[in-house]
């Protein structure tokens, strides 16, 4: 099975699904799921393969596909999330409009992401990148209403990113007259630092926009919260990670560690600037997330913050940090997808995701609660979930690299994360169940299944982090990083090792002990939720919801400081551009005389400039 075949299957299958949908919706659903599963299987079989092959000639350039462990890691994440979210869509999207289109776009985005990670040259990278961008745009806009503005914001920023990419790509082409990544990488070592820096900055704009790095993040909160939930999972889980992939490709594959280390000194180096941006990306969005009232918006802002960790790890550029960043990418893909799916399930059953009106759903959807809990624990980086290991790696890198302030931001961001993660748990699932949600049922199987898989991944990678870390270590070594002493239970090191098995067994044993004590005490009487202490009075359930404005004191403190200044700036900029554009067209006044005057003026300018000032 070659890479070309994989892409042909992925794209062709997408169109086939669309056509089949015209015949029978059931067959379409089956085909969509089958297709993603087949892709997953194929990608899984690719494990360990390396190679490059050219598949097409475009405008005189060979487009090539290549596979190595780095792209395999991303591809397997893409394929997994693709299939899981498609399965999740089965019941979530049931009865919605334009399903053929939805599945088509879902599969196309999936296929184009595979294309991105497997592309061996900058052109095919760009082609798949753009296909992904407009596919995403169409899917974000799918929900109508506020989604339209979100989609527009996304695509405009995305085009800005593509613009930067085009410039970067062609300036590389102008210097090396090839688009092949490997070829450029082999020749770039002689380039001057200034040139490399300019190319890297251009690429960073592109990938920063997709990756939602502050200050390029403003499309993300709207887009994530307005997209259909299965797609939000893909969007947050893997699509924005294409930016991460781009960062890795541009920093470590194209430019390479050695050349990268010459770009500036100390604080003024490219690494460090990126790391500082990443730190800002962690800090500010975390607290903005804290203040949101829409569950998906919280998660969206949280995605930005988590991306900050990934970039922080990758940017710092040691083998430990790289491993942490890459691992956190995998982890974020799993737990954020899980959370979006869980919120999607809640929205599917209750019809709302407003944190202030929900409550007590745990009584009706205990399974979804467990999944959300696992996802939230992963998000926090709770020990025994995968998020812990990756964050641990990042912190350790920062502390030992004498960057305690970055480490402080990262750790402090984690505490912010706890606050909003608990807010989601509490406001949706805990507290009193409002009267209107008394009839809510548990999520259907096709929603449960992907969530179970993801939660298993979270726990498994949390207890046995060695599985993915070994793969990541292989990638790191291939990029020129020092090899890490990876074990199945974590990492051995002189300056503090990590052993998740120990943590796991410690907690397990103490759990058992406490549980035994708990069991030994008299059993308790199970009461309904309304049997509740309220200073002796009985408050009817309808008026018992106490979730609004959950962290009021902290809001009061941080509200003046935590504003999305960037978004305000962009919006003002967009407004200014719109006004400018509006003024521009005022020159077409409708007066015939002035139009003729324009013609004569042009002629006059042309001639005067030449004859009078001899400019041309």
């Amino acid at each position, binding site marked *: 099975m070659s890479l070309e075949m994989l892409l042909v299957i992925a794209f062709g299958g997408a169109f086939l699904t669309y056509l089949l949908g015209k015949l029978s919706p059931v067959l379409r659903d089956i085909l969509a799921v089958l297709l993603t599963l087949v892709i997953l299987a194929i990608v899984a079989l690719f494990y360990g393969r390396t190679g490059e092959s050219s598949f097409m000639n475009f405008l005189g350039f060979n487009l090539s596909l290549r596979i190595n462990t780095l792209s395999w890691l991303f591809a397997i994440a893409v394929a997994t999330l693709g299939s899981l979210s498609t399965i999740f869509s089965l019941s979530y999207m049931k009865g919605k409009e334009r399903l053929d289109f939805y599945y088509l776009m879902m599969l196309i985005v999936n296929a184009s992401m595979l294309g991105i990670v497997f592309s061996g040259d900058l052109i095919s990278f760009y082609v798949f990148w753009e296909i992904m961008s407009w596919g995403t745009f169409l899917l974000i806009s799918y929900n109508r209403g506020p989604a*339209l503005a979100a989609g527009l914001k996304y*695509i405009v920023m995305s*085009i*800005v990113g593509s613009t930067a990419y085009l410039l970067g790509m062609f300036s590389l082409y102008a210097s090396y007259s090839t688009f092949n990544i490997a070829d450029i990488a082999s020749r770039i070592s002689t380039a001057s630092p200034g040139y490399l820096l300019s190319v890297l900055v251009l690429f960073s704009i592109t990938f920063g926009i997709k990756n939602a790095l502050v200050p390029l993040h403003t499309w993300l909160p709207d887009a994530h919260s307005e997209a259909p939930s299965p797609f939000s999972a893909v969007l947050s889980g893997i699509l924005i990670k294409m930016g991460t992939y781009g960062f890795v490709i541009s920093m470590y594959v194209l430019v390479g560690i050695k050349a990268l280390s010459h770009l500036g000194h100390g604080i003024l180096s490219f690494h460090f600037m990126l790391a500082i941006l990443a730190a800002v990306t962690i800090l500010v969005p975390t607290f903005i997330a804290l203040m949101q009232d829409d569950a998906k918006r919280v998660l969206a802002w949280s995605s930005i913050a988590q991306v900050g960790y990934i970039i922080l790890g990758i940017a710092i550029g040691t083998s430990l940090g790289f491993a942490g960043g890459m691992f956190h990418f995998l982890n974020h893909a799993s737990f954020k997808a899980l959370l979006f799916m869980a919120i999607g399930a809640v929205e599917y059953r209750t019809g709302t995701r407003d944190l202030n009106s929900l409550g007590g759903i745990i009584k009706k959807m205990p399974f979804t609660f467990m999944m959300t809990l696992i996802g939230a624990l992963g998000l926090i980086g709770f020990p025994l979930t995968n998020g812990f290991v990756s964050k641990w790696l990042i912190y350790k890198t920062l502390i030992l690299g004498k960057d305690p302030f970055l480490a402080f931001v990262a750790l402090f961001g984690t505490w912010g994360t706890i606050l909003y993660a608990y807010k989601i748990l509490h406001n949706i699932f805990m507290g009193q169940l409002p009267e209107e949600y008394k009839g809510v049922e548990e999520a259907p199987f096709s929603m449960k299944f992907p969530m179970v898989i993801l939660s298993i991944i979270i726990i498994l990678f949390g207890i046995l982090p060695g599985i993915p870390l070994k793969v990541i270590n292989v990638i790191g070594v291939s990029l020129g990083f020092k090899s890490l002493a990876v074990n199945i239970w974590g990492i051995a090191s002189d300056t503090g090792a990590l052993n998740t098995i120990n943590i796991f067994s410690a907690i397990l044993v103490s759990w058992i002990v406490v549980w035994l004590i708990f069991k030994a005490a008299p059993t308790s009487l199970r009461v309904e939720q309304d049997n509740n202490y309220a200073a002796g009075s009985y408050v009817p359930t309808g008026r018992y919801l106490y979730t609004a404005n959950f962290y009021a004191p902290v809001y009061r403190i941080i509200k003046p400081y935590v504003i999305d200044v960037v978004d305000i700036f962009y919006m003002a900029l967009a407004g200014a551009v719109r006004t400018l554009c509006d003024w521009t067209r005022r020159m077409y006044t409708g007066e015939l005389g002035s139009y003729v005057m324009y013609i004569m003026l042009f002629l006059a300018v042309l001639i005067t400039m030449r004859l009078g000032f001899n400019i041309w």
Partner: protein
Amino acid sequence: MVNPVLLIAVPLGLAFSLPIFGLISKRLEKYLPVIAMLFNLSLSVYLVPRVLTHPIIVYIGGWAPPFGIDLFVGPVGIFFSVIIALVGLLVSIYAMDYIKEGDTGKYHVLFLLLLTGAQGVVLTGDIFNLFVFYEILCISSYALVGYLRDRDGLESAIKYLVQGSIGTGLVLTGIAFIYGLYGTLNMADIARQINSIKPAANFITLALIITGLGVEAAIFPMNAWLPDAHSSAPSSISAILSGIAIEIGVYAIARVIFTIFGATDILSFVALVGIITLLVGEMSALKQNNIKRMLAYSSTGQIGLIVFAFAIATSYGIEAGLFQILNHSLSKALLFLAAGYMIYRTGSMEISSFEGMGKRMPLTSLGFTIGAFSLIGLPPFAGFASKFLIVKAALTKGGGLYTCLIALALVATVIEGAYFFRVVQVLYFRGSNENVTRQEAPVVALVPFFVLAVLIIAIGIYPGPVMHVLNSATSEFVHRIAYIQGVLR
């Protein structure tokens, strides 16, 4: 060996015999343009392989240049005549159903005349002949813009007419200068005698011609007629105007600058003007609520981009410009045609009235979307290849000016993306999602949509064959001497 004169003669002949056919049967009238364009298309395609090896030069009346008028059927000519024939064919198929009101016979006559003019401009080797064909094109388009005889149509027609006449007047003045200076009207012959445009006389001549042609080519600031005319003409005519007429203007400018004057030192100015045109066009389009006006402004912008690409003047740049002409012809024709039926169904040109069109007219909306995506330059559509080539050309040209300009061009692309995506959203995602009855465009209109969409995607994915033609066409522009020698023997 078929004489390429037929490319001009057949539409011209059919145009004037059309009223006679009309006497036989009114229904016959609307098939004649289709037949003419089918003939033209097959002939041009048939000629392509021959022309690529060596250009065909036809001497009208057997007079050899510089004394006689010649037709120079080079790669450029054949490239344009394929585009003209193709777009003309598709639009005439579309018009079979679309044009119902008014005196349809006159419409078809004028339509054929317009295409004749366009064919003539791209094939002729004589500058006055070029002017004449140009006037044929212009006059028929003035008349066609006012075809519907409503307020907007008439107003824009008279404004178009006045500006166009001024423009053609300037061209004629320029031609008079040329004749006065060199005593010849054959392009190759003029080119042979001109050594540089440094002398003021040469420069003024060039300036007059560029300005004059620039009016029709809609270069800023001479493009004030364009949004009016394109938005108030019948949609099929808007498609032709946007897809063919203004490109012909650009062709003429390119011919004048590259072949006749060999003027390289004005190019940076042209590039600047191109970018300003692009920016002004896209910026004006951003806040338009009238869909056709928006598309018209977008045409202005695209022309600016094409002009910029030509002004890069390396073989990459000219190739990119030609490719962008192809892309713009196909995409903008598709956009106008699709918009035409949407306007017809809703009875309004307001973008907001197209809500729910994705349900009502799914295929038309799809066509519009593909056209829009291609124009923005998204892969895998044709627009990507052309934009790719333009950026490549600009950056390989080097120099701060072109880098800055291409950056500005890409900024304009962002604006363009913003308004096109907004329309796509309106088509598919705005408004209620209740079930609306399907009112798809008739099959006759869907055929052009289908052909154009398939072409856009096919060229976007596999631009190889097109590039083959474009390479030769580029070399015709770049190698001026070869052209002169080819004509004058």
